[in-house]
């Protein structure tokens, strides 16, 4: 990690809520983490966690609106070695109590995205979405 990771840095970008946007979400994250000189191994993990969270928006918050023109925003902030990633969307409100991964020993397709996010990040927190946003998810990682 370089000195840059110790300085304050914030970038955000919006993306159409579509599965085809996920590669663009990953590219955006990689570019930001490149600037922050985060090492490759951690960068891969963070990109996975962020892409899984964005995927959850497409898959769950917009389950009934696959052709939406809505956008989601991903904001990456690094302050004093603490990385904070915010997600904003206008989809169906998420009930944080219902967000859980499947039992990891019960091998079946699906239910792993949230598990990966929880494995990689230090904290996963749903905050009240301020208008126009409905959902506001914040992932945190100490660098």
């Amino acid at each position: 990690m370089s000195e840059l990771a110790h300085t304050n840095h914030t970038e955000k970008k919006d993306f159409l809520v579509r599965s085809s946007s996920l590669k663009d979400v990953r590219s955006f994250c990689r570019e930001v983490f490149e600037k922050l000189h985060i090492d490759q191994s951690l960068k891969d993990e963070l990109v996975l966690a962020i892409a899984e969270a964005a995927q959850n928006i497409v898959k769950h918050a917009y389950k009934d609106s696959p052709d939406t023109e809505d956008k989601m925003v991903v904001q990456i902030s690094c302050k004093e070695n603490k990385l904070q990633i915010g997600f904003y969307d206008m989809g169906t409100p998420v009930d944080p109590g219902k967000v859980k991964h499947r039992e990891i020993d019960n091998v079946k397709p699906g239910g792993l995205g949230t598990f990966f996010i929880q494995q990689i990040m230090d904290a996963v927190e749903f905050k009240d979405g301020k208008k126009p946003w409905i959902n506001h998810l914040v992932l945190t990682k100490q660098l």
Partner: protein
Amino acid sequence: MSYKVTEEGNVATVHLDGEIDMDVTEKAKEVIFPHIDAGKEVHLNLSNVQYMDSSGISVLIESHQKALEKNTKVIIKEVSKSVLKVIMMAKLEQILNLE
């Protein structure tokens, strides 16, 4: 994602190339599943897959389970370091056939 399939006897080798995410999982299933349904042993070469998310992992699990039902198997070959890390995070390295 792009792919190439070669067949020799009862073995179909599927080379996937690119990033495997939710956007391409249906395509991946369309490529892999018919060979399993035909009772072939499927060798899934992932040497050119540098990124796989939970949707891609689901395709691996579904392929593995489908193969068991058909009394055949899916062998995952030449997994890149980054994809292996995701497989291990999902604690699947002892479940899937990795070579």
